[in-house]
């Protein structure tokens, strides 16, 4: 998909909570002898997907150097909003000073909601309906105790402000979305933890849709893996993104910069976007980035971005992903379950 008018990212920001738990510690409690990643982020008791989104958004505004009142849309992608009914978007809008004139909505599509938010906002800016749009991917993912996913379900947020291409630090070249009804992971209303389908989440889900979107975009745009300097995939673990990169023909060095799952875990709707932010923290003008998300249910968004020469000046205006990653306070499993509200007190 290509918008009629050229648009791009005018500001970006990420946020990762300070707490970490080592996978080895989770394994200790449940008697496991192996684990998929080193450690994952844990939100503090006073954090939720909304508070994280506020910080990521403020970072994006700092880089965009705009008056928040000029933001015409706030799209929040999350599967763990603090309220089942009551939008995070309006609270975020108040907190950043974008009220009252704005389009605001919360959206859900598992780990893909952030990139879908981005595509929606791209459309609004390109159509001329708004000047700037804020797209956020944020999650405080919950893992069922002792389940595989407890080893990776983490917390984080990333925010992107879209504006016209001439003001952007990375232009949006094209996007592609690929969806099917594939029940690889879900949560029924009223259920506390999600269900997943183990190995079924691989080939028929993650790989099919990531490859579908990536190939779809590259074919439409006449691009090949060698045309990209970086590729960021949704990262539920380290294995999947490395394997799909290989399957698509991307060399490992291109994946590394945007792959953080081993140190922060799977931040769900924020995952590919935090990876993108990490890439923007170091990319050079003229470099091309491919981002491919994956959300269970299922679908992938692929975006092709071209970095401009505004990047060097812009990236230093707010904290980098690395600054958040290297900020750590470790908790043990007992504090972890307390912070995550898994202990029933009533």
């Amino acid at each position, binding site marked *: 998909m290509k918008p009629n008018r050229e648009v791009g990212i005018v500001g970006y920001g990420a946020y990762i909570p300070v707490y970490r738990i080592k996978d080895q510690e989770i394994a200790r409690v449940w008697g496991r002898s192996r684990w998929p990643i080193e450690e994952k982020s844990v939100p503090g*008791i006073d954090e939720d997907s909304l508070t994280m989104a506020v910080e990521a958004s403020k970072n994006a505004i700092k880089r965009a150097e705009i008056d928040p009142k000029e933001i015409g849309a706030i799209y929040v992608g999350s599967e763990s909003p603090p309220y089942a009914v009551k939008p995070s978007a309006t609270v975020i809008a108040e907190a950043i000073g974008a009220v009252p004139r704005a389009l605001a909505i919360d959206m859900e599509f598992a780990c893909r909601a952030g990139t879908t938010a981005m595509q929606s906002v791209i459309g609004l800016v390109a159509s001329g309906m708004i000047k700037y749009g804020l797209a956020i991917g944020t999650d405080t993912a919950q893992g069922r105790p002792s389940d595989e996913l407890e080893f990776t379900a983490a917390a984080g947020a990333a925010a992107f402000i879209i504006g016209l291409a001439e003001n952007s630090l990375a232009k949006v070249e094209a996007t592609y979305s690929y969806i099917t009804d594939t029940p690889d992971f879900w949560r029924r209303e009223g259920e506390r933890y999600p269900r997943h389908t183990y190995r079924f989440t691989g080939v028929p889900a993650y790989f099919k849709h990531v490859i579908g979107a990536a190939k779809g975009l590259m074919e439409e745009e006449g691009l090949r893996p060698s045309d990209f300097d970086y590729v960021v995939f949704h990262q539920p673990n380290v294995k999947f993104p490395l394997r799909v990169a290989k399957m698509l023909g991307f060399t490992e060095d291109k994946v590394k910069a945007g792959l953080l799952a081993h140190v922060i875990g799977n931040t769900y709707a924020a995952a590919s976007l935090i990876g993108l932010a990490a890439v923007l923290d170091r990319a050079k003008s003229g470099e091309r980035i491919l981002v491919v998300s994956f959300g269970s249910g299922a679908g992938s968004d692929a975006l092709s971005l071209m970095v401009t020469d505004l990047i060097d000046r812009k990236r230093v205006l707010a904290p980098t992903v690395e600054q958040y990653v290297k900020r750590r306070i470790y908790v043990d499993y007992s504090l972890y379950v307390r912070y995550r509200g898994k202990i029933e007190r009533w």
Partner: protein
Amino acid sequence: MVKAASVPRVWRDREVKYRLLGTYCKSCGKSHYPPRIYCPHCGSKDLELVKLPEEGKILHFTVIRAPPTDFEEYAPYIVALIELKNGTRLMAQVVDVRAEELKEGMEVEAVFRKYREQGPDGVIEYGLKFRPKL
């Protein structure tokens, strides 16, 4: 739940608490949080609504170990008297740091966090806390 908790009250304060709005006294030059009607220092009515700086330093802090109702689930937590860059003082929690590592005079910045919930089915009260500068 404390009887003082109410939805309109939370709503009424949201701009002040989310965006750190205060007043600046044009007579004596001091700034205050929260916004006032009369300057508490010189009594003047000549005040202007301003956005306060979101950075400052810790003057004094303590660790609350016996919390009031609605705050039990967060204990222990750090509360501090903070002085913002323009001299305005306020009270807030300090987060993302162990109390042993905190020092008076440490530079801090505002972060948006949950302060409490009006019960498991009630509204969530957000506000600004502070953490050591990144």
